């Protein structure tokens, strides 16, 4: 056995390190450019906002791990509906917080099960099935909430804004939940079943993994996490709104991939989701600090996401080799 420490092999087996490195660079650039605001304020803000990117990303990660083609496009609609349910059930009263939270998560798990049933019974590709279900879920949210904005209970509002030193309590709770989910994914038979399915469904079936049950539970789990995130988001932004989940559709996929997880499934890193979420928030902050127009900001975000994926596509090889090998191969190819 080779026991020598090697940076290359360490990074190769832990591609999520890149997302933290990228986040650190962004933090340095932002602090340098924004001069006035302190680093601690930035830490607090980035942890709060990264929580929402990360939880939606974690939900997406579980579905993506299931294998090629698996994706959940219903996360935004699910967030909108569950948050509306939670706020209405809580009705601004602290005693109902737990019941409201459970109600929202129950709604979420139903949405997830609905997604699975569409995929399995109708044999529709997940991208289309979850798109269709998101239409239905969004309609239910519109009909249910009817445009009213219910204030979150004061206790819950206090919790999502509470801090220990500079660290938001909500972010700590979310990180703890992510750790539990990491144990679930990597150490339990259920979680290993998800990964096995993503690597080779036939082998997983032969290894006696309950394929359909694993799929169903994974879609339900992902939707439940998204619903939980919806409740936090509604509490954080002073009530639920019918569009508040929409910006998390693309970001949930982006943070999974930037975090080093394979989009084709079977190889996932929950820690990377957090690194990528910090990166994404800091990127937005940096572009704001530079005074970029909204258009330029979006454009730069697109370029940087593509660039990160581009760099990640050859993190196992040396960068020089990776850039030139395909070009050489292309030039040698017969015309």
């Amino acid at each position, binding site marked *: 056995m080779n026991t020598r420490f090697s940076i290359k092999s360490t990074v190769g087996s832990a591609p999520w390190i890149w997302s933290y490195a990228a986040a650190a660079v962004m933090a340095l650039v932002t602090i340098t450019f924004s001069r006035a605001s302190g680093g601690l304020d930035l830490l607090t803000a980035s942890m709060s906002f990264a929580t929402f990117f990360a939880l939606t990303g974690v939900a997406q990660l579980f579905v993506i791990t299931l294998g090629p083609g698996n994706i959940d496009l219903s996360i935004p609609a699910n967030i909108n509906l569950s948050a509306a349910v939670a706020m209405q059930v809580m009705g601004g009263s602290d005693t109902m917080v737990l019941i409201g939270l459970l109600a929202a998560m129950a709604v979420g798990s139903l949405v997830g099960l609905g997604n699975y049933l569409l995929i399995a019974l109708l044999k529709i590709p997940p991208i289309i099935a979850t798109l269709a279900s998101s239409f239905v879920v969004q309609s239910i949210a519109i009909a249910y909430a009817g445009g009213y904005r219910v204030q979150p209970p004061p206790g819950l509002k206090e919790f999502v804004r509470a801090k220990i030193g500079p660290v938001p309590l909500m972010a700590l709770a979310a990180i703890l939940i992510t750790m539990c989910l990491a144990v679930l994914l990597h150490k339990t038979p259920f979680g290993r079943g998800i990964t096995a399915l993503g690597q080779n469904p036939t082998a997983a079936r032969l290894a006696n993994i309950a394929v359909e049950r694993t799929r169903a539970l994974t879609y339900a789990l992902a939707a439940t996490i998204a619903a939980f995130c919806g409740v936090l988001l509604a509490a954080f932004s002073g009530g639920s709104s019918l569009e508040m989940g929409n910006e998390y559709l693309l970001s949930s996929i982006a943070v999974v991939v930037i975090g080093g997880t394979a989009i084709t499934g079977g190889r996932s890193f929950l820690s990377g989701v957090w690194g990528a979420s910090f990166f994404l928030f800091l990127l937005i902050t940096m572009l704001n600090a530079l005074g970029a127009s909204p258009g330029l900001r979006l454009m730069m975000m*697109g370029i940087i996401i593509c660039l990160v*994926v581009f760099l990640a*596509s050859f993190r196992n090889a040396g960068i020089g080799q990776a850039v030139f090998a395909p070009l050489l191969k292309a030039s040698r190819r017969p015309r």
Partner: protein
Amino acid sequence: MITLLQYRVLLPLVTLIALTGTIFILQPRTMSYFGLSLLFSFILPIALATVAQMFVIAVNEIDLSIGAYVSFATVTVVTYLDTDPAIAVGLLLGAIALHTAVGALIQLFQMPSIVITLGMSFFWGGCALMVRPLPGGHAPDWLTAIVKVKTPFVPFPILACVVLALLLHLLLMRSAVGTIFRGTGGNERAIRNAGLSVTGIKSAMFFLSGLFGVLSGVVLAGLIVSADADIASNYTLLSIAAVILGGGLFVGGIVSPTGAVIGAATLTLAASFLSFINVPADWQTGAQGAILIIALALRGITERYEH
């Protein structure tokens, strides 16, 4: 194989006829030249965007940026084409070139197209916002005249879609080049062993996708009064749904150009249909989702009978 293909085109066609028939019964006044032009007024840009998506799906990739891309083309046309045609043409050609380059890079570096085009959707959205930060603009009168032309007997949007479907059918299903295009989605290695460049073919498909995306944006610009940077953002998911509804599969190079155009028409009509049967505004999106689910469920059932 022939029956399989027939079913693939037949089912969306039956769905489309059923929808149109129901609308005719509910509102007989739509059964006229004017009624039909109104019902199908926005079908052409959606069909063109669907075709753009189809080219990419044919080679086993997916394009999540097409909505933002079409928006960019539309705002470019309404902002520059009348006053500075050179800038407009330059921007549109540049967009096609960049889209083609993205396709080439995806193949060269084996990057997941779903993520790269996701990033590109931010890019094109940003570009569109920079061209037109506030809603407004004006398409050249000649463009409006072309897309709103009154053709005899059959309204222009329907005529244009039929011609589009026929031309694409000839290109993709009946020509040697089309076989190679679809073959790349079916068996990449076979294409490579035949001495062809997969990178070249995928670039060509992204070029065609970029071209039709720009066409979609230009036609959309002629149809609307004023544009904003988000004008076509729902085309991304609409186009994917239409391709699949029209009998396409995400893998294997199995696509049907006629089916895709019919799928686009079905989804366009679904919206009109729902307002005709007095579905409350709150439930219209949901009912659209339900129509999509029913149409795909029917497809699943017919396919199971075939096997």
